[in-house]
């Protein structure tokens, strides 16, 4: 049996534990999204690969626990990823400096893979976001890079939408404060051009 968009996702997910085709459909659909999200958050390919592995092994193990209520399946996966990133951050707090150094290496690698976008913008995003707290980085990543609505972020994080709006506002203020004004003006000019 081949699964396509036309088939009810609920049924596919119910089958995914037993049927490889169903699992394959889910994996191909969500894995790149989760990987991208984790990459935005940890800035390191090796760490991201470890976290994504844990996310999918946990998801497969607990697939029977997933209930179709208000939360869509993607939000459930994002929540697992979100929790794993938090766990990782707790463990790796001491290695924050190392991570920032590796990040520079990773930027190079990723840049070589994606020539089409603006290098300055790319560096800008990563270098300054890395200076923010985990919580602030999370909300900015989900809102601006993942293009998630506040409702979706609320489903993932378990916080209500109004709290998230306040958190985002504060995170943006912090980000603006840590960027030197001339760098910021330069970045704005790049976008306007």
């Amino acid at each position: 049996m081949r699964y396509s968009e036309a088939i009810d996702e609920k049924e596919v997910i119910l089958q995914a534990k037993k049927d490889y085709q169903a699992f394959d459909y889910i994996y191909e659909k969500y894995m790149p999204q989760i990987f991208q999200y984790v990459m935005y958050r940890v800035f390191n390919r090796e760490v991201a690969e470890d976290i994504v592995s844990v996310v999918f092994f946990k998801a497969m193990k607990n697939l029977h626990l997933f209930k179709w209520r208000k939360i869509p399946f993607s939000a459930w996966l994002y929540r697992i990823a979100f929790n794993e990133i938090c766990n990782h951050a707790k463990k790796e707090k001491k290695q924050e400096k190392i991570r920032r150094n590796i990040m520079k290496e990773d930027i190079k690698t990723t840049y070589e893979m994606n020539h089409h976008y603006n290098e300055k913008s790319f560096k800008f995003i990563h270098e300054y976001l890395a200076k923010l707290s985990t919580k602030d980085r999370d909300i900015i990543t989900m809102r601006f890079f993942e293009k998630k609505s506040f409702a979706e972020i609320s489903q993932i994080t378990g916080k209500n939408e109004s709290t998230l709006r306040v958190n985002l506002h504060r995170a943006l203020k912090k980000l603006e404060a840590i960027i030197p004004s001339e760098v910021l003006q330069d970045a704005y000019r790049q976008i306007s051009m």
Partner: protein
Amino acid sequence: MHIDKYLCNVEKPEFLPGPFSVRLKYELKQKYFDKKNGLSLHYIYGTTLASLLVICAFLVAKPHTAQSINNFVFGDTKEETLDMLLLSDHDIDLSNYPNSIRTVSSENNSTLPFIEEDKSYLIHKFKDQNNKTLIYISEVKKSLQPKTLY
């Protein structure tokens, strides 16, 4: 321009999972869908359980074999069967033999003339404070020899 507008308009890098995606999918497939692994595990469990059941059934059906194995493994306890001799089958006059318990002495250490003595036993009778009795029978490996008195 505000930072939020900048973040909306900035070109975001696309992080592709690359070969990692294939590797992870393979690992997940192996763990959750590889029937060979699942079958071999089930086969091992099933065979072990079936073998244990057969062994248990065999030991229940053949207790002598179980006892032989037990003796062989745990010690030198010899199986002893008593094939009892009925005196009534022989034409023996038992009037010369005591029919009650008497004190043993070297002089009246009588034996049955038509059969050989196989083993000797010592019987001890104990009594506790509540006057409860314990009879303790111990095997004497060598036959008692009458003491020579000077």
